[in-house]
């Protein structure tokens, strides 16, 4: 139910594994995590959303905020998500045009623009 967060490095990418509910109550934790990574010089992020059960517009806002921060450093923020219920949230808000969305962490880590 609550938000879980863990990070690991794969080459020059940092993978953030998110689980549970990203909502108005927990989104600040994710936001802090993304800010910390950017402050410590990690500008190529992969956010693994496969364990996410709930996502609201606050969560979307935090992801968009993260994207803007990494872009300010020529970085990237890629999402991993295959869950239809979560993909729907990105589609409805048109954010599939803003985020590269991958079907696996491997694919996201290997991707370049």
């Amino acid at each position, binding site marked *: 139910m609550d938000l879980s967060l863990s990070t690991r490095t794969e080459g020059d990418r940092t993978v953030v594994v998110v689980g549970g509910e990203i909502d108005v109550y927990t989104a600040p934790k994710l936001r802090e995590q993304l800010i910390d990574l950017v402050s410590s010089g990690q500008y190529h992020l992969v956010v693994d959303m496969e364990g996410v059960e709930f996502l609201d517009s606050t969560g979307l*806002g935090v992801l968009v905020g993260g994207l803007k921060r990494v872009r300010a450093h020529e970085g990237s923020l890629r999402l991993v998500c295959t869950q239809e219920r979560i993909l729907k949230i990105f589609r409805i808000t048109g954010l599939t045009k803003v985020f590269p969305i991958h079907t696996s962490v491997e694919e996201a880590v290997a991707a370049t623009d």
Partner: protein
Amino acid sequence: MAVVELLLSPLAAHVRTARLVTVTAARRAGLEDGLLDELRFAVGEACSRAVGLHARHAPGVLVRVTIEDGPAGLVVTVVDAGPAAGPVPDDVSAGIVEGGDLAGDDGEHDLVDPDVALALLTGLVDTATVEPGVTGTTVTMRWPLPVAARGPGATAVSDT
């Protein structure tokens, strides 16, 4: 007809309570399992939006969530006392790249942009209606209930 009404001061934690109560009441009213998820997302969105507006504009006023099951199906209403909603935007991705932020004007806080919340909500639930009024906005959402299958929750205390 079973009615639950929930009044909440504008705290993020209360949005979870609203989701929980609504999902529980809907399940008891017999709402199909396939629709529970849509309900959870939509109610969460309506409530985060309302709670965000109250936190900024009406911290002393309670957000009102009403859940009714009756002949019209399951009807969930979220009433806020924020500035009236404008027209719901079609596509919120526009402008994000050049600096618009989904999470409201204030980059330091994680407030829900009320327009994005409404776009998401009406995109998720076909039957959602948004009525701006003088004192705030009323969001109404309806889901069908199976005609026969009124769950045990519909049983009155004295029906045993």
